[in-house]
């Protein structure tokens, strides 16, 4: 089972917006991907793993231009939203996840073990980041984008995952496997019922 070897495939979104779940879904579908769970193994924040490269610190390498996207063509990698700012011209297909901002902030605070006393400022900044990055990627001619919503995936997995499957442009990936991956029990920090 393969993707286009001339294209970089990316799962993205603001941190804690469901990017790891997207990688799990794709992995369950047999989609080629690159990750290394040894540098940041599964934990209470992501019990099924982070599905990241470079221990999650890929953004630094993108900023320094020391990350070779060429080596990862034809497979999905995870680059969170801020990192998309630093992508050189190329050929990309991106699945971009969004989530209720309060759930994102709750999850960030839990993961970072903080109580954010400036939460309204943080909220504003991450809303701006999300808007800016979406504008950026939706206007790049070298990117095809699928926007997905974490809350919707959990509410209506069949429709959302069918869209993801269709975006892969191949019937060979395991749609049922992808669907079976969605686990409501992992939907922590739920604000939207």
């Amino acid at each position, binding site marked *: 089972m393969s993707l286009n070897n001339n294209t970089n495939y990316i799962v993205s979104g603001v941190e*804690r917006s469901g990017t790891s779940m997207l990688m799990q879904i794709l992995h369950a579908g047999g989609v080629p991907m690159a990750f290394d769970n040894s540098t940041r193994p599964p934990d209470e924040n992501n019990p099924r793993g982070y599905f990241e490269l470079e221990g*999650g610190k890929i*953004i630094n390498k993108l900023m320094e231009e020391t990350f070779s996207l060429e080596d990862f063509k034809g497979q999905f990698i995870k680059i969170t939203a801020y990192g998309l700012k630093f992508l050189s011209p190329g050929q990309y297909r991106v699945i971009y996840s969004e989530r209720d901002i309060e759930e994102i902030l709750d999850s960030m605070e839990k*993961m*970072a073990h*903080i109580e954010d006393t400036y939460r309204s400022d943080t909220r504003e*900044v991450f809303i*701006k980041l999300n*808007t*800016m990055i979406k504008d950026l990627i939706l206007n790049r001619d070298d990117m095809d984008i699928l926007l997905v919503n974490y809350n919707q995936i959990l509410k209506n997995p069949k429709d959302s995952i069918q869209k993801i499957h269709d975006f892969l442009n191949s019937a060979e990936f395991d749609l049922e496997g992808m669907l079976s991956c969605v686990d409501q029990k992992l939907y922590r920090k739920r604000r939207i019922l």
Partner: protein
Amino acid sequence: MDKDYTPVEIPTDLYKQIEEKISHSDVSSVADFITTLLKEKLSDDQSEGGSLSSNDEEKVKERLKALGYMD
């Protein structure tokens, strides 16, 4: 002109606060008040969406470091 509307729920306490607020103004209904406010907010967000200030960017980086996504 016909317009499509979708009902949205807000907490009753909030509704009453808005009712009280607009009772001394020329806003005709809570729905009008909320609709105007949200349109303004969305418009502001769109116009600010083009870039992050350097201060905003530092806040993003700080949070990403706290989450282990950056050094």
